């Protein structure tokens, strides 16, 4: 018996040694083959429909902040899956790393993907950006793309780009849905016009969140003029308990409708218990709040993933900043909860979406909001603190996500109160 155990042990040790041996040798060949794969890429550029067969060595790497249990990452994973299906890539061609935090582990993960021969690497969380840039400078032959970031254009590297979606458009439309619901509540006598207060669960107090809640609020106010809003930050992207507690606090404070820019369904759970309508984010929340979830603003990342992978496969070049909205199908709102949305909502939603697509309606139309009582145009002339917005504000609206893919609207407009600020 003893001998048997010993021999098993020896086999195991042998395995370790041999494997360590071949591992090191492949790593050197990996780096040398990266050039040759470049050439095969351009060869297949013409017959793009047959790309899948001839470019079997094309590899896509993805770094996620979380895993499928968290809405934001789930949305990205779905995007990658739809890209894989659209381009016909095999499972081996996509290497995904989940639960990668925003520290040097991220750099290690990216480099590991690079060494495994990935031709394009996506990183998905804001804090991954520095590490992506660091890796991009060391692997000039690989294309890097970072979601939600803002530094690619200024980094001086031509193999890194930023991408985002015009999710503010979806939030605006979701806001219209919320506004119609508020109107219905007023008509039914549940609340008075002055009680139209919305509660908003925000993650962090910076442009991405501010842009989102402002768009949502403007959507609401386009149909329900007396609405006001309170924003409470959680200082966390995904904290189920905290979001639930925040929603409860907002409801206790008199908010009659809740929306969120945070990644879990914690808020929806609290709303379902209290019978308060909620507009979610990223995922359809009717599974946890069947009687209160109206709809959710959602990103369809697959549009970019398909575009980016296809472009790089064909040897093309990606723009330093990419952000699209309804026009390209990159954002949407999830299916309306027909049981609780007011009649006529679907028609109104279709009308607003169409207006946004055609460019007839601009979400951040400067005539629709004021700051401390004055319009942004006036402030830019009189107050030097606002002069920097001249870049973005012209032709009567704030050009969100046009200069840079990442949101830049960080004005605090009248009608919205932030409950916590630092």
């Amino acid at each position, binding site marked *: 018996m003893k001998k048997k155990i010993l021999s*098993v042990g020896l086999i195991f040790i042998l395995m370790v040694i041999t494997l360590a041996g071949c591992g090191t040798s492949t790593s050197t060949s990996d780096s040398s083959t990266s050039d040759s794969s470049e050439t095969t890429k351009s060869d297949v550029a013409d017959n793009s429909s047959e790309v899948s067969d001839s470019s079997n060595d094309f590899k896509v790497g993805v770094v996620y902040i979380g895993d499928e249990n968290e809405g934001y990452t789930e949305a990205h994973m779905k995007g990658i899956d739809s890209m894989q299906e659209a381009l016909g890539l095999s499972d081996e061609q996509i290497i995904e*790393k989940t639960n990668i935090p925003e520290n*040097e582990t991220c750099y290690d993960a990216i480099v590991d993907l690079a060494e495994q021969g990935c031709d394009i690497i996506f990183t998905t969380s804001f804090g991954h950006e520095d590490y992506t840039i660091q890796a991009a400078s060391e692997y000039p032959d690989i294309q890097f793309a970072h979601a939600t970031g803002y530094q690619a254009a200024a980094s001086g590297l031509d193999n890194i780009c930023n991408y985002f979606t015009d999710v503010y458009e979806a939030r605006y439309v979701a806001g219209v849905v919320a506004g119609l619901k508020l109107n219905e509540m007023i008509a039914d006598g549940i609340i008075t016009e002055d009680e139209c207060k919305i509660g908003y669960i925000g993650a962090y107090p910076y442009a991405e969140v501010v842009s989102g809640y402002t768009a949502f609020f403007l959507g609401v106010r386009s149909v329900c003029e007396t609405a006001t809003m309170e924003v409470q930050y959680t200082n966390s992207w995904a904290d189920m308990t905290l979001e639930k507690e925040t929603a409860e606090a907002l409801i206790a404070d008199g908010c009659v409708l809740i929306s969120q820019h945070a990644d879990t369904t914690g808020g929806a759970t609290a709303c379902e218990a209290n019978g308060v309508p909620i507009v979610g984010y990223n995922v359809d929340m009717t599974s946890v709040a069947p009687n209160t979830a109206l709809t959710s603003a959602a990103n369809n990342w697959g549009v970019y993933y398909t575009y980016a992978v296809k472009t790089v496969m064909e040897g093309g070049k990606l723009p330093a900043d990419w952000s699209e909205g309804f026009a390209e199908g990159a954002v949407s709102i999830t299916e309306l909860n027909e049981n609780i949305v007011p009649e006529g909502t679907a028609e109104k939603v279709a009308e607003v979406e169409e207006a946004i697509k055609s460019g007839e309606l601009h979400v951040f139309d400067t005539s629709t909001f004021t700051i401390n009582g004055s319009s942004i145009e006036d402030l830019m002339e009189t107050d030097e603190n606002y002069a920097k917005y001249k870049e973005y504000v012209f032709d009567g609206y704030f050009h969100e996500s046009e200069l840079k893919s990442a949101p830049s609207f960080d004005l605090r407009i009248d009608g919205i109160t932030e409950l916590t600020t630092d």
Partner: protein
Amino acid sequence: MNIRINGKRKKNYIYLKKRDQISMKKSIGIRIIAIIMALIFCALIIIPITHLNPLQIYLEIINGAIGNKRRIWVTIKDILILFIISVGLVPAYKMKFWNIGAEGQILMGGVATAAAMIYYGDYFPNWLLLVIIFIVSSIAGMIWGVIPAIFKAYFNTNETLFTLMMNYIAIQIVAFCVIFWEKPKGSNTVGIINSATKQGWFPPIFNLTYGMNIILVLIITILVFIYLKYTKHGYEIAVVGSSINTAKYININVKKVIIRTMALSGAICGLAGSIIVSGASHTISTATAGGRGFTAIIVAWMSKFHPVAMIFVSGLLIFMEKGSIQIASLYGLNENASDIITGIIIFFLIGCEFFINYEIKLKKD
């Protein structure tokens, strides 16, 4: 079969006997058998749950940890950090001071390092900046270790609770500083500090990115073990650890020893914080210590404070951690899957201590 441990009945066929001594060969042998049995046991769990070949999973774990040069270096870097933290814990544990505050001491060292990099980055040459970093990070960790020690020495407070609470204060201080230094505002991340100038970064030595980490860890380890083994201070620590009354009897100033030893222990953990920030991550967040201050406790105790054993144990833990990322990405498993494997291995390793201390004897009637 009628098994009774140390039973007095005559029917016993198997009984346990405490070993007087065990040869090095035998004790290592028992541990290897334990690991192999753990892996077999893991396989029995893997097959029904995942329907994957367990051998393939083990091979991928190995591949993920040491599959290529890069991976080997990343693994080494993390082993060094876990190892140096456990080295920092050894003096305190030899004294039977239950310091579970390494996490906080690391964070304080890390935050001091980040502050030095941010505020002094432009004023000093890199070597001088690194010296400053080592000094401030050690002092920061030392303060965090000495506070509970003083309370223990003078008021006999419970050091386990005290050090644990100090961790939370440290986490809050880091959270505060992150908001203070965050870039851009509101994003809650500091980003890579001095990424353009590389001020306050460990320079590569002998062409090795982590050369300086190795040298630093080696020097500290040797000094600590000389201090514990061959100096009067080291002896005093051992006496206080085994019996405070004996220590008092032979005129050792127990209060002084407690404070002095925790100062040393805290300083090393603080320095470990600077190795993490300056030598690896170049950023600071509340996750900088990442639970390693607690894992290091397992490392120190499982190796019975033996430095070589500590390298092996920290190596094993990091190895499994790195492998876990690989199998998670390859098979679409959750990282938790390999946490289970690591847990089982640790369970078997701790369990096998029983067979190192006792031997099973067969009694023939």
